[in-house]
């Protein structure tokens, strides 16, 4: 009996340690990225493709105001309301004093400089798939953007989701290092996949989620309830939209559907970002979208 108790206790300790190990914050260190330097000019394209302005600029910012990353926008979810923080170049209220390694750790592992887990309302789950060179360029570009001294606002998230540590367990279940669409793709569609999955995170909105809030990869881009509660974010797999490659690429540029309705909701700000890309990159995203498996 004593032996059995001891066995159970040890088992519990091992499981606990394994759990802690699995959910531990993983930092990218300076040695991991030795020799990596960013090019601010190249970083601008990454910035627009990755859509940082959509969440981190003020609500309804237009034009040059989209470059002021003062934060504040609210993101309602089943788990509570998250608020995007100030990520401007301000050293006190933004991230102006961060090292590149800290920036990469946040964007790819979802871990703060203090070792806390971020909530996946911040799509590090997608940026994790990005090339580090692209993110180094992005960081260099962001340092050229205006500083804002607007303080970040707290999230409004209830227990148990208020425990950031719990996100570690979520990450162990949901973080992945592979693209969602693994089929053989043309070179153009592969470029589109990189832009759409690693940077523009189209799946975060267009893919339904499981009970834990993880993306349901078996229904990739198959449409999802709008987090605001009413309406549905559309299924954008090829059969469901039924648009040509040219029509998709044009929509991503000017926001007009083939019958000249105009994109609204959160898609509008995605299109403002996409309009900053090259025509070739928009065509690549369209080619990717037409290569995604059909969902009913």
């Amino acid at each position: 009996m004593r032996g059995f108790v001891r066995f159970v206790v040890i088992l519990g300790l091992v499981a606990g340690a394994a759990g802690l190990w699995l959910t531990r914050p993983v930092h990218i260190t300076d040695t991991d990225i030795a020799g990596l330097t960013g090019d601010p000019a190249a970083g601008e394209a990454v910035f627009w493709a990755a859509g940082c302005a959509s969440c981190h600029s003020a609500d309804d910012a237009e034009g040059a105001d989209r470059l002021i990353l003062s934060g504040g926008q609210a993101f309602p979810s089943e788990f509570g309301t998250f608020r995007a923080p100030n990520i401007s170049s301000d050293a006190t209220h933004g991230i102006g004093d961060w090292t590149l390694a800290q920036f990469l750790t946040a964007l790819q592992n979802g871990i703060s400089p203090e070792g806390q887990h971020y909530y996946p309302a911040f799509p590090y789950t997608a940026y994790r798939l990005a090339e580090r060179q692209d993110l180094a360029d992005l960081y260099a570009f962001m340092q050229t953007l205006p500083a804002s001294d607007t303080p970040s606002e707290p999230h409004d998230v209830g227990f148990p989701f208020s425990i950031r540590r719990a996100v570690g367990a979520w990450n162990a279940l949901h973080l992945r290092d592979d693209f969602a669409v693994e089929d053989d793709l043309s070179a153009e569609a592969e470029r589109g996949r990189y832009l759409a999955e690693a940077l523009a995170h189209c799946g975060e909105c267009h893919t339904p989620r499981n009970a834990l809030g993880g993306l349901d990869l078996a229904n990739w881009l198959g449409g999802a309830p709008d987090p605001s509660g009413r309406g549905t974010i559309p299924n954008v797999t090829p059969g469901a939209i039924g648009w040509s490659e040219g029509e998709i690429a044009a929509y991503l540029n000017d926001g007009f559907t083939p019958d000249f309705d105009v994109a609204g909701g959160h898609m509008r700000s995605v299109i403002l970002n996409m309009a900053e890309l090259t025509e070739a990159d928009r065509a690549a995203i369209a080619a990717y979208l037409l290569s995604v498996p059909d969902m009913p």
Partner: protein
Amino acid sequence: MTLTRILIASALTGALALAATAQESNPAVDARQGQFQVMALNIGVLGNMARGNTDYDAETAQAAANNLLAVSQIDQRFHWPVGTDNASIEGTRALPAIWEEGSRVIEIWGEFGAGAEGLAAVAGDGLDAMRAALGPVGAACGSCHDDYRAPAN
């Protein structure tokens, strides 16, 4: 009346009642949706030229721009009765925020009007001038749909 007749008659009344609830047609909602369809049709004439899908034609472009300007001048007060938001009735994508404190809907409708005026001033002056003036109109459509129209169901 035979039993079959009664059954058929009551089935018919039932079906009619069902159809009535399913449609819940509201004349103000119909009118505004129709107005937006007119806008989309005319934007489409210009948008297809701007995208290079059709050849630019000055007279056609001017006619479409004039139509947009005319729609922008329709007094909107009868199109938006209180209680015709998508939380209150079926068949509309209009969000309650339109009627809430701080709503920018009237202001954005004004931006659409200013854009349409700018467009009508130059639509006949060549493809590049028309394309440049189409931008602000599209931006007004987009910024209103961004905050005040729900995604489709």
